[in-house]
Every structure is written in structure tokens, then in C-alpha cells.
């Protein structure tokens, strides 16, 4: 009987406490000493992984890199006749991936704080990197000079607001991690996004009038914004006529840079023009053929 008891103890042994490192970097193998003698069952329980295996006490236990790839809280439990446990935290490795959002996809030119850039930094196992990491934002317009900004992440994320540049066309914004010394990045990583800058509201909107009998032909000058960008074809321009017959409005799209329409007028008339929130010039017709003021 006593021999059986000795055999049982020699099989299941006596496990002491287990001591885990306070912090482990994701994907890094490490070993821990197992105190005691005999055999025990070891459990490692992590965010995406569970390990259960028999171990020999009194030797070092190797924790493989693949067992600690997910950042977060891990439990180590060692059981023989009773169980003992400890915890450790796996922290993200250095930044290796960027999740980059640029908003909106189209933006009017020369508009302050109109572009939002947001970047999340993840390590090579797609753990959110919570230690501050510098992200370079490089802004490259289709014409004109580009510029860059640097922002450090806080809790894995950084964002900034940018002004749109004065010229229409595509603008490329690149978020990058610089793997140089001092930055928590595994190497050079870049993510590019493109937005389209479009003309802003019309500026100095003007129309010309040609009258022939009761018919008036109205045509705008080329419709441009205050930076000189042509408003796109299809943008609606509204012509409004007020005469003895009443009030009449015609909405017409810009074609080849200008908007054109015709009215029949009765007696004297006033004609105005608008595009979006912008008012243009007003023309008064005195009722005589070809007359205007």
C-alpha cells in the first residue's frame, strides 16, 4: 500500500508555484522554470489559444512563439494533486500594419479642416499597438507642392484634419510607419488613399444677354470658383425672370463650362442668376427691342 502511494506521488509529483514573466511581446518564445518533481498538467489559456499538456516538473517549460501571438491576458495553470495559477500579459509587437481611413472621398477645394485622416496601428499579428507610434502623413496634390505631417498614436490610433488645397484634381494621402530608430515600427509601411478635390462654389457669376424681339438669350461667362477651377458640367444654374407675365425660373446645367437659356419677355423685365448659394449679376430689360440696362 505504501509502495503504491510512493508510486502515485512519483508519477504526479509536487508542483510548486509558477512564475511567469510580467510582460511578454507577442510572438516571442520564452521559458519558465517548473519547480517540484514528477509530472503535472500544464494549461495555457490565451485570447485565441488554449494549450493543455503533461509536463515534467523540475525542468524548464518552453512556451512557443505561436502560443503567444495574440495580445492580451493569459492564464497559466499547473495541476497535480492541486492546481496553482498565474497570469501574464502579452503586449503587441512593433507596428507592422496600418488601417487607414480618409474621409470624405470628394471635397471642395480650399476648404479648411475638410479632410479627415485616421490611422490605426497593428503589429504583424494584427494586435492593436497601444504604445505610442509615430505615423507620417504625406499629402501629394495633383498640382502644386505637397506637405507632410507627423502624429503620434494614442491607444493605437491617430487622426488629423487637413485643409483641401486650392486646385481641383486627385490628392493622394499616404500614411506611413517609419521603421527608423526611436519609432515603434517593424519596418517601413505605407498605405495610400486618394480623394478627389472638386471646384468649390461659383465665384463672380455673370451672365450676358442677347435680346431679339421678345426673346432673350442668356449665357454665363465660364463658371469658376474663387480659385479659378471650372465648375463641373451638370452643375445647375438658375435663371429667374420677373416681368408683367409674372415670375419664371429655369434651371439649366452647365455644358462645356457655361450655362445658357432663353426667355420670352413681356414688357420690361428683371433677370437674375444664381448657382447654389451664390447670386450673380442682375439685368434689367426696358421693354424695347434689344434694350437693356
Amino acid at each position, binding site marked *: 500500500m505504501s509502495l503504491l502511494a510512493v508510486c502515485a506521488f512519483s508519477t504526479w509529483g509536487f508542483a510548486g508555484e509558477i512564475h511567469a514573466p510580467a510582460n511578454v511581446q507577442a510572438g516571442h518564445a520564452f521559458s519558465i522554470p517548473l519547480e517540484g518533481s514528477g509530472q503535472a498538467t500544464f494549461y495555457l489559456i490565451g485570447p485565441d489559444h488554449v494549450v493543455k499538456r503533461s509536463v515534467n516538473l523540475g525542468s524548464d517549460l518552453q512556451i512557443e512563439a505561436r502560443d503567444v501571438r*495574440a495580445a492580451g491576458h493569459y492564464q497559466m495553470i499547473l495541476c497535480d494533486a492541486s492546481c496553482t495559477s498565474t497570469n501574464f500579459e502579452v503586449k503587441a509587437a512593433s507596428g507592422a500594419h496600418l488601417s487607414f481611413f480618409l474621409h470624405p472621398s470628394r471635397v471642395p477645394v480650399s476648404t479648411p479642416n475638410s479632410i479627415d485622416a485616421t490611422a490605426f496601428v497593428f503589429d504583424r499579428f494584427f494586435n492593436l499597438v497601444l504604445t505610442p507610434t509615430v505615423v507620417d502623413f504625406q499629402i501629394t496634390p495633383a498640382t502644386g507642392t505637397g506637405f507632410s505631417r507627423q502624429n503620434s498614436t494614442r491607444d493605437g490610433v491617430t487622426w488629423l484634419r487637413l485643409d483641401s488645397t486650392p486646385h481641383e484634381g486627385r490628392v493622394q494621402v499616404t500614411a506611413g510607419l517609419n521603421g527608423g530608430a526611436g519609432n515603434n515600427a517593424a519596418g517601413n509601411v505605407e498605405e495610400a488613399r486618394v480623394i478627389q478635390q472638386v471646384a468649390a462654389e461659383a465665384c463672380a457669376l455673370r451672365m450676358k444677354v442677347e435680346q431679339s424681339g421678345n426673346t432673350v438669350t442668356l449665357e454665363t461667362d465660364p463658371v469658376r470658383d474663387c480659385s479659378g477651377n471650372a465648375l463641373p458640367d451638370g452643375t445647375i444654374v438658375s435663371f429667374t425672370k420677373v416681368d408683367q407675365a409674372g415670375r419664371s425660373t429655369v434651371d439649366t446645367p452647365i455644358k462645356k463650362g457655361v450655362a445658357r437659356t432663353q426667355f420670352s419677355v413681356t414688357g420690361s423685365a428683371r433677370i437674375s442668376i444664381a448657382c447654389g448659394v451664390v447670386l450673380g449679376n442682375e439685368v434689367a430689360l426696358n421693354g424695347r427691342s434689344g434694350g437693356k440696362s
Partner: protein
Amino acid sequence: MSAARFVTLGLIILAACSFSLAQSPSSSLPQVHLDADGLGPRAIEELTGTTIAKNYAKAWHNLALALDSSRSGELGEEFTGFAKDRLVKRIGDQQQTGIHVHIVDHGHRLKAIFYATDGTVMQLVDEAQLEMQTFDGEKLIDTQSAPRQYMVLMTPGADRWYVRDLEEVSVPSK
């Protein structure tokens, strides 16, 4: 009242009690309190706040069911992306090793810390009060009840906010 009607009435009452007993534990969601004071760069809408708290509570409810039963199907629709991939893998490992984890959830204090201007992602910190009992088969091998802190990323879908990333981080010492 005839004996047959009496027995029928008794069975109906019994069925109703069983239903409420059976429903009660599975339908009760953990308490989630969301604090969005000072959130930026976008301010939170009231309906969004309510929806996030509800969906996050449902996510933890489902997570507890899944870890206890070792069935990834119990995770439901509340998780997506990295969070779902990791939990499905973990639950698969639980099944293989015979481990399961019972969570007694005493509630979550969520603090929203980042809400993207286009509304596509919200980052939150969850201070959770959880008791976690780890079993190997029927044998209780570990119990833990310390406060826990999670870094959470949630993204909106058509009809809910999904938990896209859920990482436990160390609780800062006070």
C-alpha cells in the same frame, strides 16, 4: 372543476414557470454603462450610445455562453473581424482540450475614447467586473475575480454595432 381540467391547468402553470426559469438566465444581459463624455473628434448621438451599450452587453452575454459551452455558434452576430476569428479559434481549442470557462458577469463600465469623424469606428475602454471559473471537464482548476480592462473597437453594420477587436490590457495601478 373536473380532475382533468385541474391537471391541465396545473400543467399550464408548470410550463409557464419552466419557461420563465429557462428563459431568465439566458435572456438577462450584463449591465453595461457607457460614458461618452468628452468623446471626439465626433460627438456621439443618443441612439448610437444606446445601441452600442445594448450590442456590447449582448456580445458579452454570447461570449459567456460560448466559452462555457465551448460552442463557437453561441457567439452569434455580435462579433466580427479579428475579435471573432480569435474567439472562434480559442473556443475550438477549448473543445479539443476539454477546457471550458464559466463567467459570472457583474457588469461593464465602458468609456468611449475615440469616435471617427465619419462614424465608421469607435474605440472604447471597458472596465469589467468578472468572475472567471476555469474547468477541465468537470474539475474546477482556477478561479479569478480581479477587475479586468479591455480595449475595444466597434464598427457599425446595417442594424447593429459589431465588436471588431477585443483585447484585454493590464489594469492601471491606482
